[in-house]
């Protein structure tokens, strides 16, 4: 066991600060987050932190519903994940794409020059549409009578 610990430490030490270490570390964090989200149920675990903006104002913020979306996704319920926060799945997909391209460049350097292995961040020129989408979603989901999938209930 001591030898295994030493070997693990040596591996961790050799990966520290490298792109491979970072890409692997992010993957580990994502896996742990998925397992935790699978164990949680926002309708049962009332101790889960609520959105301070929603608690104070009663209005939905652009991030409201993210916890429920993440837990629904971890339970395989894609429809609910979409309904609790429409922007959650597209945003998650974008962030996973950034990670996947980074992992390919880190672990398979021979593919690093392929166009599809480039970071999607490099494709962004003037991403003002991101701000526009977030603010528009913030306004629209607080309009009385907004479609159910835009609300967070």
């Amino acid at each position, binding site marked *: 066991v001591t030898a295994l610990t030493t070997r693990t430490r040596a591996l961790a030490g050799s990966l520290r600060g490298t792109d491979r270490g970072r890409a692997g570390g992010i993957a580990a964090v994502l896996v742990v987050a998925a397992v935790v989200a699978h164990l949680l149920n926002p309708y049962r675990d009332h101790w889960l*932190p609520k959105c301070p903006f929603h608690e104070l104002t009663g209005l939905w913020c652009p*991030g409201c519903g*993210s916890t429920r979306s993440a837990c629904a996704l971890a339970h395989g319920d894609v429809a609910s994940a979409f309904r609790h926060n429409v922007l959650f799945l597209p945003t998650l997909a974008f*962030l996973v794409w950034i990670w996947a391209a980074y992992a390919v460049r880190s672990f398979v350097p021979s593919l690093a020059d392929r166009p599809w292995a480039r970071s999607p961040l490099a494709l962004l020129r*003037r*991403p003002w549409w991101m701000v526009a989408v*977030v*603010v528009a979603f913030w306004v629209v989901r607080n309009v009385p009578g907004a479609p159910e999938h835009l609300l967070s209930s």
Partner: protein
Amino acid sequence: LSYQPPAAGPGPSAYGAPPQTYLVWSILNLIFCCLPFGIVALVFSVQAQSAITAGHWDNAVDLGNKAKGWNIAATVCGAVAVLGVLIIFGLAASHGAVNQQQNNFGP
């Protein structure tokens, strides 16, 4: 529209890699901290990205640092808010509010 030459200042040639825009951090703050600070950070990240596209990398460094500062503020405020909620729940639970929650268990 007439061609506008880029303003003077160190451009892509003066640095190796483009400056940090902290765009991913800003997006994560916006989703999980849901604070106005997250929006401000996103705006600075977008401005930094736009400055990189325009070739004004020195501006992008300033804007990226502002995005970083707002992101730190958003993360700290989010962490304080989350801890505050957990502490308040802990106090409420120790005062017997837990019995009410038993009725709300889902299927």
